[in-house]
């Protein structure tokens, strides 16, 4: 196979980024020689991310790429980055740890992870580079998985690293972004922004969030121009559908919301988009397009967890040409790059997401340890010893768990069902269910969070039986609620009423709240769960949970206000 860029059909001077980064054109790029514009697009990314001088050293970036290759189990990419140094300083170890988590568990990257980088001395520019380098690693590993390039003569096979020490103790919290706050703003006529306005009709937050590195945004736009936009092989709609399906497979709420909007603008119905997100086999796509989504989705999810080979033969049997398959693979690689970039930056959606991915969307058949939504690990759980005893057959140990948690369970239930007597009876049912299913509790969240989830489900079931017509799972649509009571409150409202009156007033006010806000407020303010724990118990995203808590608090404030408004001329209580 020729290594001469000219033989690839590239103009002189192209592929310079790849050559600058690696010293030659690796086979993973040559394997796409039937679609030179795709190689050129990838070269732009390699040039901007790996070849240019930046805040992170080239050695640090190669170290990250090696780590990503390990997480994604790509032997080819491990060999490609074999010469990179191992993490040698504590600071490097923090950086590598971040990349390993982003590559393996992107949806669970949180503000805490980014804060960890800041505490280790990395500024926003360095953090952006770490994110984008990890994303590049995703792109390269995806290409290598699908194209299976022969090992280059310049490379030697290498043994996988042992990252177990660095990966130990991953903290799986879920918090909303954005994580970086560029101080500079790019001008409205910045050419990439013009590109987005012309192609998408808007400038996505993902790109505004990279204002620290305009050259990166330019490279990403060139990659889109080289892979997504042309229509000579796959159609634009076919590729947009690939992006949508893969983003759904990657549980990327941001990209699903964005591509749904773009596909809609291209004439695809929202119903069809939603069907692709949930199960493209049930959509009205042609058998060929369904095969394309089958193949590309499997490839996108192919990682250390899944190693299914990319089935190019099936695509050929559906009439796709080799060049179309190469372009499809490049589209998957670019989507994985962009999804990883968004997860690392925590970019907030440009549109209200129709589909918010939560931990419930994880594939249950994954048998490797997977992230949980509760920041606390099992060993931090004060109930873990008692739970282990019950699980090993000591039923009497359950008595202390009931004693410890009955008040919380009752509190959750009374808030959900809105009736104290029903809550008292249902409290017992919750513990009996918990006992029955304790064998399935694997300690991925705190026992108390798990118990709270059972209480919410039990209460919701009860409510549904009692009021079958009430819709319990309304989406968080903005109902135009605005605070109306804007008079000052007395300084010590607790002293205005007797304790029992205050208790009744709060109870009545809380019970009048719509159920979704009532439950949110009960979990956060009465049961003192963290926002993350409450979101985990309800199976909601953190932003949705935050919105419900705030709405509940503001609505309750409205109903309490008439009792605590400061009288005119009074200085307080």
């Amino acid at each position, binding site marked *: 196979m020729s290594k001469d860029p000219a033989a690839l059909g590239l103009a002189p001077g192209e592929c310079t980024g790849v050559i600058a980064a690696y010293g030659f054109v690796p086979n993973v790029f040559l394997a796409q020689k039937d679609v030179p514009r795709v190689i050129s697009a990838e070269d732009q990314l390699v040039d901007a991310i790996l070849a240019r001088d930046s805040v992170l050293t080239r050695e640090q970036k190669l170290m990250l790429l090696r780590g990503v290759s390990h997480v994604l189990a790509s032997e080819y990419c491990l060999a490609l980055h074999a010469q990179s140094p191992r993490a040698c300083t504590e600071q490097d170890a923090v950086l590598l740890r971040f990349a390993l988590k982003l590559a393996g568990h992107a949806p669970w990257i949180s503000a805490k992870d980014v804060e960890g980088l800041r505490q280790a001395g990395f500024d926003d520019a360095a953090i952006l580079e770490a994110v984008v380098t990890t994303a590049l690693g995703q792109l390269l590993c995806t290409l290598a998985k699908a194209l299976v390039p022969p090992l280059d003569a310049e490379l030697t096979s290498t043994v996988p690293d042992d990252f177990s020490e660095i990966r130990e103790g991953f903290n799986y919290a879920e918090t909303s972004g954005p994580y970086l706050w560029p101080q500079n703003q790019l001008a409205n006529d910045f050419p990439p922004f013009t590109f987005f306005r012309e192609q998408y009709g808007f400038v996505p937050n993902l790109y505004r969030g990279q204002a620290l590195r305009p050259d990166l945004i330019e490279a990403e736009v060139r990659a889109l121009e080289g892979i997504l936009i042309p229509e000579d092989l796959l159609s634009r709609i076919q590729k947009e559908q690939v992006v949508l399906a893969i983003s759904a497979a990657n549980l990327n709420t941001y990209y699903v919301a964005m591509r749904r909007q773009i596909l809609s603008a291209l004439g695809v119905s929202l119903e069809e988009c939603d069907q692709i997100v949930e199960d493209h086999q049930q959509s009205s796509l042609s058998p060929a397009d369904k095969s394309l989504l089958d193949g590309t989705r499997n490839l996108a999810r192919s990682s250390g967890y899944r190693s299914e080979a990319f089935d190019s033969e099936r695509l050929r049997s559906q009439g796709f040409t080799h060049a179309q398959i190469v372009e499809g693979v490049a589209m998957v690689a670019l989507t994985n790059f962009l999804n990883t970039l968004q997860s690392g930056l925590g970019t907030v959606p440009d549109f209200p997401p129709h589909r918010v991915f939560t931990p419930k969307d994880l594939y249950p058949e994954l048998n490797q340890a997977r992230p949980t939504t509760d920041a606390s690990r099992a060993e931090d759980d004060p109930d873990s010893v008692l739970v282990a005893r019950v699980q090993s057959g000591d039923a009497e140990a*359950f008595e202390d768990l*009931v004693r410890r948690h009955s008040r919380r369970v009752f*509190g959750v239930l009374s808030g959900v069902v809105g009736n104290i007597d029903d809550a008292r009876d249902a409290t017992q049912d919750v513990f009996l269910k918990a006992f029955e299913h304790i064998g399935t509790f694997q300690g991925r969240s705190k026992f108390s969070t798990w118990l709270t989830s059972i209480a919410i489900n039990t209460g919701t079931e009860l409510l549904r039986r009692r009021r079958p017509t009430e819709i319990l799972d309304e989406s968080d649509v903005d109902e135009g609620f605005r605070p109306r009571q804007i*008079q000052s409150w007395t300084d010590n409202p607790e002293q205005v009423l007797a304790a029992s009156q205050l208790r009744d007033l709060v109870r009545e006010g809380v019970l009048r709240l719509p159920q979704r806000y009532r439950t949110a407020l009960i979990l956060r303010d009465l049961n003192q769960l963290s926002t993350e724990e409450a979101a985990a118990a309800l199976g909601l995203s953190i932003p949705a949970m935050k919105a419900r808590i*705030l709405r509940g*608090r503001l609505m309750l404030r409205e109903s309490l206000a008439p009792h605590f408004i400061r009288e005119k001329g009074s200085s307080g209580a």
Partner: protein
Amino acid sequence: MLSCADFLAEFGEYLENTANPGLRARLEEHLRQCKVCQVIVDSTKKTIKIVTDSDSFTLPADEVEPIVQSVMARIRDKKV
């Protein structure tokens, strides 16, 4: 400067102390100049404190033990 609608959109982050420093500074700048939002912030904080301290949905202490014993009796019955 932020509008009141902007402030309310970020109010949750302000209350939970999760706003980043830049946003927090903008929110506080708005608050210094907006009496209405000052009232909303003050009364919402008081609402949270009242709710947190109210014991409105707390099981009375003397009702805990009967529940514990009833649950354990039902578990023992099932095991036999």
